[in-house]
């Protein structure tokens, strides 16, 4: 098993976590836009 440097792995872990946060953020923004649009379009 060859992992070039521990630094590369740490950066990889940070990248993966940020990637998951990015996915959550995208769907949170979509959810917010949808609920806002609902109010705007249907006036409820």
């Amino acid at each position, binding site marked *: 098993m060859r992992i070039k440097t521990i630094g590369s792995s740490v950066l990889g872990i940070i990248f993966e976590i940020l990637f998951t946060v990015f*996915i959550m953020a995208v769907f949170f923004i979509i959810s917010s836009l949808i*609920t806002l649009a609902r109010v705007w379009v249907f006036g409820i």
Partner: protein
Amino acid sequence: MILRPQINDLKIIGFSLGKLICALGFVMLLPVVIGVVFSEASPVFDFLIASELCFISGILLLLLCRTQTEIDWMHGMIIVALAWLVAAFLGAIPLYLSGHFVSFLDACFESMSGFSTTGLTLVKDLDHLSLTHNFWRHLSMFVGGQGIVVIALSVFMIKGSAGAFRIYASEARDERVLPNVISTARFIWLVSIVYLVLGTLVLGTVGFLEGLSLKRAFFDGACIFMAAFDTGGFTPRSQNMLYYHSFLLETVTVSLMILGAINFNLHYHIWTGNRKEVFKNIEMRTLGITLLITFAIIVVDLLRLNLYPQSIPFFRKGFYQLISAHTGTGYSNLYSMQFVREWGNLSLVGIIMAMGLGGSICSTTGGIKALRVGVIFKSLIQDVKQIMLPESTVLQQKFHHLKMIVLEDKHVRAAVVTVLLYFTLYSAGAICGMFFGYPFLESLFESTSAAANVGLSIGITTVTMPSALKVIYILQMWAGRLEFISIFVLLGFIVAAFKGKK
């Protein structure tokens, strides 16, 4: 012409099985440590009894089935298929001894649900279960998510062999992360342990900030990590994630669920600097598209029903259920009855689709898997292009999965066969559910949840459900986790024992 199995075949299978059972015995000693730390004497005895039973049966098999013959593909498949059944049976012993299960069948159900990282539960009075037994429920998910065989390979085998790879691949892991299968197994454990430490720290800290005592925050944190990263879905509490009333905790679990749904090969590429792979990879792209499609389906229905008018409840309830379903985790911040009484049929269909599709190959998730869905769609695009282009054109479709791969008929065939098998499994379970009087959509929901190793429940999985249905769901969890082939080989072996040529 299928040959009748010989005594030597049984010895090869028994010998490897013996080693795996001994490995399980060692794993069962970990809850003993928890029991000693938390002064829970009776559970300590439960696990010592179970562990010794594992060692006794394992050593008996090693003594009776001593052989030097190399394992071939048939043996590998049968070993894995039996190992999972045996592990579920032996893992049920300490659970049954706890007194929190109505029958040994219920304990076997719980054990199979744990090892297959499903998360459907039949435990009685979970809130009064000992920390030791609770730890075992979650540890079984951690072990099962990585693979029972992977543990044995990484801990008990010093050097790899063709036989070792055959057993590894038979556990529905046909991708090698590293050239040597032992190194692959150890890398999978490295990723899991690193995230175990990080995840437990973060979850424990969040739990403590949300009001849990320090001891309970880190214990629950470790348990939730093991179930979230391994996309299992057990929690130490009967209310599942609702117990904690914490948006922050749920957010952390979403991160872990997504991490658990990523191919271990992709983890390796990311950790070694090839980060662009995340965006080029066919699995990640397919997952992104299916997530958006199923989210759209749920959104339409939830908007129509006006269930969650504000953005945070909409995200917390709508998206959380979806990501839990799609990654095959099964964590829920809704009561089962709310699915039935409040959510509409369309949103339930969206959840069922997400559960059925699943996560990545060579990850901790179940279901059809994104690579197969991606390959089938690529094949469809290729067929449409071929028709639209001049007849003499030779079209070569490629897809990117860690490297560029030319799409060939064998890839499509393999994907379609597995998809059909999963659909058959989901439908068969749904038909069985309807046979016992449950409505169609609820039966399909529960069947898909079991077969795709998700664990979300619409209310069918209870202590009072028919025993036959419990057996059916156990078999579905087993088949779904092992992706069929090893089970068919086991059945073929049994048939050959009676009808094979001498």
